[in-house]
């Protein structure tokens, strides 16, 4: 019981803190909107994907990119708490141990829900139509949010291991760039050289984008959805277990 209320309290604190940090807000909400508009209007004219509207092709990619990069916030927030001594105080309180990590990842889940909704709104204003209906779109967004929750545990591990928030960013950004930009998020994989395709299409970001598109653009989707869910479930199990281990170890 107390584990639930403690987690809710920490979640609330993390959300409130993010709302009051202008840099975090810009990073979480303004930047994704700029990306939608940039790719739709600045690059979109030059990129042609046969058979579909580029904006319908683009939105699944932008959703994946946004939650992948947004997860850095999980590591930055945790690392900041670690440095400021707040986590040390938390360790001396009679609160549930799980609340620190749970409160962090749940706050980030809530943030992702808001950001994804905001981007979908901006996408609609920019011509995004999700041709196969609302249910397909909601299914795709469900995959995005599940992926986001799983990945935030990877960044919990990172946040617990690095010495400061800047180091967390430095470690995460190159890997994320590689995953996002070798995937089919912005351009079809078919346009990439074979060796890059091989890397780009066997990783979780691409699996997510492919599954979203299968739902949004129509066609057989079951296999792609299962692959993406399997990635998210696998990442979640491995990194949540690792994160708990790292957190418990910190007091040794």
């Amino acid at each position, binding site marked *: 019981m107390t584990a639930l209320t403690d987690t809710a309290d920490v979640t609330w604190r993390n959300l409130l803190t993010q709302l009051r940090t202008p840099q975090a807000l810009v990073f979480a909400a303004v930047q994704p909107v700029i990306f939608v508009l940039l790719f739709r209007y600045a690059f979109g004219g030059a990129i042609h994907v046969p058979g579909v509207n580029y904006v319908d092709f683009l939105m699944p990619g932008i959703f994946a990119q946004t939650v992948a990069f947004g997860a850095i916030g999980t590591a930055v927030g945790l690392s900041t708490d670690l440095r400021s*001594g707040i986590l040390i105080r938390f360790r001396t309180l*009679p609160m549930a141990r799980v609340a620190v990590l749970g409160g962090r990842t749940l706050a980030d889940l809530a943030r992702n829900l808001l950001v994804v909704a905001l981007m979908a709104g901006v996408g609609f204003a920019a011509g995004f139509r999700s041709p196969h209906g609302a249910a397909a779109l909601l299914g795709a967004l469900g995959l995005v949010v599940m992926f986001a929750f799983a990945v935030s545990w990877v960044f919990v591990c990172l946040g617990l291991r690095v010495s400061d928030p800047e180091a967390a960013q430095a470690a995460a950004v190159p890997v994320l760039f590689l995953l996002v930009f070798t995937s089919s998020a912005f351009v079809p994989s078919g346009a990439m050289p074979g060796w890059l395709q091989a890397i780009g299409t066997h990783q979780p970001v691409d699996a997510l984008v492919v599954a979203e598109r299968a739902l949004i653009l129509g066609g057989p989707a079951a296999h792609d959805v299962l692959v993406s869910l399997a990635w998210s479930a696998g990442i979640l199990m491995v990194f949540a277990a690792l994160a708990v281990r790292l957190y418990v170890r910190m*007091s040794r």
Partner: protein
Amino acid sequence: MNDLVIEAEGLRKTFGQVTALDGLSLRVPRGTVLGLLGPNGSGKTTTVSILSTALAPDAGRATVLGYDVVRDAARVRATIGFAGQFAAVDPNLTGRENLRLIARLSHVNRPLVRARADELLEAFGLTAAAGRLVRTYSGGMRRRLDVAAALLHNPPVLFLDEPTTGLDPESRLGLWESIRSLVRSGTTVLLTTQYLEEADVLADEVVVISEGHLVGTGTPGELKARFGSVLFDLGFGTRSDADLATKALTAAGYRPERSGTSIRIRSADGSAAIARVLRSLDGLVPDPTSVAVREPTLDDVFLSLTGGQLS
């Protein structure tokens, strides 16, 4: 009921190559203040972290109110308040929000959370600033909020790691008074400090540590009597009087330190020895124009214990 509230036996902790604690033992009786004194890196923070369950020792054991800090950590946490070296309050919450959050996480009865937070804001003079974000607070205000946060669940045992580091003199006096009134109401306190004056003013018992082990212990008075020497400063009207006095004192077996028209003598026998010093001048030298007696401070004790100067 055991009257020792905090007991530690042979605590050991290493971080990689560095030995932070090398077999430290200490005991704190109920309702008293133990001052843990030592230079940076001596193991003070490690000790407090272990006793407050934030860190597990490599060896040794410790109990708080009879509960083992490792095996019964949850019980220990319910009985202690902890304020760490850095004010661990959230800059992006208001003072009131910080206290309410920590109160809920300290499992203060939900209906009492608001009242308890307001009570402590009042007690620490933060009521007027309660609605402001903590990032707009001064260092002293943050510190007070941090200590207030440690008291929300009325803990009978309080750990304070360098509570007044970086505070201005007025804030320091205010915090001292708060700590004293907690002790009067029965709280047991373990505090670390680099300020010898602070230990002198607050502590019933002082433990001096260096490089992870105990180098001296006693009441502030005992330590000063044992390790510090009293200084007598005698001032004379003229240099020639001072010359005469230097000779007379040397002849009487003292080691006067001359500086202009004044002479300093160190006494290991306490301030009462001033009478003998003055008698050795009687009839040989004109009376000194000023006599000052400086009692030893804990600084003197500290320096002699940690090798800064021979005792």
